[in-house]
C-alpha cells in the first residue's frame, strides 16, 4: 500500500467505490489516474473495456449518470474547470432524477496553478457545487495516499446511499503528481 502513487490510489478508490464503468475527459493532471484505471481494467493507451474517453463533461453526466437506471453505477474523471460545462446536466438530470454518480476532479484553482485564467472558474467550483446541493469532498497533500483511496471509495458509497452525485475535488499540488 505504501508504494503506490496518489493517482494509483485514486484509481483504486474509484473501483472500490463500486463503479462499473468510468468515463473521462482528459487532463494532464488526471492522466496518471486514467492510466491506472485502464491498466487495472486490462487495457492500454487510454482505453479499456470499462474505461472510455468522452469529449465533454455534460455528456459524461449523461452517459455515466444513466447507469443507475439500469441498476449499475458509474464514475467520471475530469478537471474542475469542466463543471462550467456540465452544471445543467448535473442539476436537471442527476440531481433531479435522484441518480447516484461519482465524480473525481482534479483542481486548478489554487496552489501550484500557473495559468492566469483557469482559476477564474476553478476557485469557485466548491461553493458553486455546494450552492446546488451537490456534496463536495476535498483532498490535498495533507492526506495520505491511503486516505485518498478510502475517501474516494466512500464518496461513491455515499452517492449510492443518498441517490445523488458526489464530487471529490483532488489537489495534486505537493503530492507525487502534478498540477498541470
Amino acid at each position, binding site marked *: 500500500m505504501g508504494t503506490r502513487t496518489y493517482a494509483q490510489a485514486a484509481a483504486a478508490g474509484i473501483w472500490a467505490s463500486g463503479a*462499473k*464503468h468510468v468515463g473521462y475527459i482528459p487532463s494532464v493532471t488526471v492522466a496518471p489516474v486514467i492510466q491506472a484505471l485502464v491498466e487495472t481494467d486490462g487495457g492500454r493507451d487510454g482505453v479499456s473495456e*470499462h474505461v*472510455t*474517453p*468522452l*469529449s*465533454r463533461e*455534460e*455528456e*459524461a*453526466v*449523461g*452517459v*455515466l*449518470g*444513466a*447507469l*443507475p*437506471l*439500469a*441498476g*449499475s453505477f*458509474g464514475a467520471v474523471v475530469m478537471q474542475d474547470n469542466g463543471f462550467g460545462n456540465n452544471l*445543467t*446536466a448535473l442539476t*436537471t*438530470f442527476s440531481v*433531479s*432524477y*435522484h*441518480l447516484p454518480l461519482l465524480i473525481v476532479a482534479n483542481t486548478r484553482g489554487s496552489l501550484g496553478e500557473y495559468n492566469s485564467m483557469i482559476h477564474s472558474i476553478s476557485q469557485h467550483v466548491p461553493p458553486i457545487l455546494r450552492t446546488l446541493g451537490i456534496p463536495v469532498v476535498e483532498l490535498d497533500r495533507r492526506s495520505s495516499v491511503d486516505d485518498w483511496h478510502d475517501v474516494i471509495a466512500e464518496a461513491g458509497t455515499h452517492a449510492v446511499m443518498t441517490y445523488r452525485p458526489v464530487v471529490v475535488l483532488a489537489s495534486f499540488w505537493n503530492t507525487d503528481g502534478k498540477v498541470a
Partner: protein
Amino acid sequence: MRRIEALAHLVELTEHDPLVVTCAATSRELASLADRDNHLYLLDSMGLVGSVATGLAIAVDGSDVRKVIGIEGDGSLLMNPNVLPTGGYLAPDRLLMVLLDNRVYGSTAGLPTYADRVDLGALAAASGWTVGTADDEASLRAEFARLAETPGPALLHVRIEAGNAADIAKLLVDPVSITLRFTAWLTARLPRPAA
C-alpha cells in the same frame, strides 16, 4: 407527417423497448398518446437524450434488450452534437436514435435550427452510425424495423413538419417518479447487474 403522427407509430413500435425522450413538446405529445413504464422523459435536460441512451445501451449489453431507443429533435441534438462522434466511437450495439427533424426549435417559438442547411443524418453517418431516412409513415416503420435489428449505433432520420399538436397537457410530474418507474421496468429485463 406531423410529430404526433410519427410518435403514434413509434408508440406501436416500442412497447418492449426502453425509450429515452427529449423534453418539452416531444415528451408531452408522447405521453398524451401513451404513458408507459418504459418511457424515460428527460423533462429539462436539453441535448442529453443521446448521451443517456448511449449510457443505457452500454449498460444493457448482453441482455435481451434489443435496442435502447432515443427520441431526439434536431434542435436538441444540436445542443449536444457530441452525441454523434461519441456514439460512433463507443459504438454500443444496442443504440438506436430516432431524430424527429422539423428544422425548427419546436418548443421555442419555432425559431430555425441549422438543420435546414446541415444534414444531421450525414453527420451521424460520418461519425460511424448506420443511418436510415424516412419522410412518411411507411418509410418510418420500415426503416425502424431494419435499424432495430442492425448491430451498432443506428440513427433514423425522420423529416417531419414543423408545429406542435394542440391542447397537449404539460408533463408536470416529479422526475423521481419517472426514475423509479423506468428503473423497475428496465432492471426486471436485465439478467444480472449491468456494466
